[in-house]
């Protein structure tokens, strides 16, 4: 290695490496840490904003090549993660939760809960600390989707959430016998949302995903007022009817200044398990078109697949196994979501000061 190469030279070379989502180079973003230049070796740490970052290997490789181009033969890059959190207002209810993501839809039955549970599992598998809050008090489904028989415990006046597949969970289903129904008006719903946030010991979390009931009602409003949400993910099926109603959910979040992180197309297509023929039952690509038209990121498509249904009912989310196409689909959506969270956090205005 030529002896004249300095740390400054290395940093200059690394300025050519861009983060494709944030449109900035990795030095300006502060990703490069612990740079050491010794006789035959250059080593540094690359600290990315999410373990689910979709382009992490690619960025490490580009960085290595950039340094090698200076004539360095041995480059060691250590990849670490520090999940970013917005600079916007912090919530006193959940001070140690870095990002709060609402999983919402206009219509019911589009698969919000399945998507939320699988995204939670996929982010956890990638190495993040994840929580899943079931705010659908009328039709709670998280405990079924995530399996496990653990119940919440009350310790020192706070609720200790059960854990399944490394994901902390809370749901109304834990507090009611199976056959009982919740028949409440708004103020009770508001109280429950507040309790799920403030009285559950979430501790430190990178991502808290919130499975919402369909529509634009009390729960959505309470949640958006109680905490400064990082953003919302909209789940829709591809047909026009569902998309028309999904745009109402989008309109609500925009009124409440909650950023739209992107749209997921669920039940996107059906592949016949016996003959392999693909059928677009609800049409296909509608959500992608809608996100292009509205200017929101499209996070990906999830097939209508009997495996997803069977595993969901059995409490084993398909995202647990990334070797299956279904698991892969959810991991891709999770990676796209993680990237959008980084983008939103990067763009958010600084905290509003109130005196």
């Amino acid at each position, binding site marked *: 290695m030529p002896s004249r190469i300095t740390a400054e030279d290395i940093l200059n070379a690394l300025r050519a490496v861009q983060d494709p989502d944030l449109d900035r180079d990795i030095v300006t973003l502060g990703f490069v840490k612990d740079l050491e230049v010794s006789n035959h070796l250059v080593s540094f740490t690359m600290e990315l904003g999410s373990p689910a970052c979709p382009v992490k290997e690619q960025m490490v490789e580009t960085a290595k090549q950039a340094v090698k181009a200076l004539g360095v033969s041995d480059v060691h890059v250590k990849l670490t993660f520090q999940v970013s959190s917005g600079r916007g207002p912090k919530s006193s209810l959940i001070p140690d939760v870095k990002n709060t993501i609402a999983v919402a839809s206009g219509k019911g039955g589009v698969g919000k809960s399945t998507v939320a549970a699988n995204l939670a599992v996929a982010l956890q598998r990638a190495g993040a600390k994840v929580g899943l809050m079931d705010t659908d008090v009328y039709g709670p489904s998280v405990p079924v989707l995530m399996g496990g028989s653990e119940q919440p415990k009350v310790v020192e006046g706070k609720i200790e959430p059960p854990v399944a597949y490394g994901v902390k969970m809370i749901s109304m289903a834990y507090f009611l016998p199976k056959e009982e129904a919740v028949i409440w008006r708004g103020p009770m719903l508001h109280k429950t949302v507040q309790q799920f946030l403030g009285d559950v010991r979430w501790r430190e979390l990178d991502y808290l995903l919130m499975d919402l009931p369909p529509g634009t009602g009390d729960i959505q409003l309470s949640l*958006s007022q109680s905490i400064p*949400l990082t953003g919302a993910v909209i789940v829709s099926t591809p047909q026009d009817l569902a998309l028309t109603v999904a745009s109402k959910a989008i309109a609500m979040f925009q009124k409440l*200044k909650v950023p739209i992180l992107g749209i997921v197309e669920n039940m996107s297509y059906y592949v016949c398990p016996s003959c392999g023929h693909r059928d677009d039952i609800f049409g296909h690509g509608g959500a992608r078109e809608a996100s292009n038209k509205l200017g*929101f990121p499209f996070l990906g498509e999830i097939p209508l697949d009997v495996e997803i249904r069977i595993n969901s009912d059995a409490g084993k989310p398909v995202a647990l196994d990334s070797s299956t196409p279904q698991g892969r689909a959810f991991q891709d959506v999770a990676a796209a979501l993680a990237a959008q969270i980084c983008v939103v956090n990067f*763009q958010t205005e600084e905290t509003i*000061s109130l005196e």
Partner: protein
Amino acid sequence: MLTDSKPVPKNIKLAGGNDALTVKWSDGHSSAYPYRYLRDKCPCATCGGAGLPKQAASPFPMFGAKPLKPERAELVGRYAVQIHWNDGHSSGIYSFDYLRQICPCPECAVRREDASTIERA
């Protein structure tokens, strides 16, 4: 387009001087809302934008009415501020868009006047 590009407050001062709440906006605009004006524009369901009933002249002027002012305020989610007034009223949630819309400065007043002229035409 993750969020809309409407201006948001960078700084909100409850005691902005001259019995007014002041807001500095992300686009550089400054607004000053006299307390009485702000309360008259309270958007809560009970006030319905109608404001306070006109107070009857006190039969005991020597005791004077307590001057109206906000005691404290909290941010609501990412989109609004809730004001707690010294007479106990606190149900008004002023969204940032609404606050900007009712900015009493002459410039904004002219813009509102223009908009309503167009509507009438």
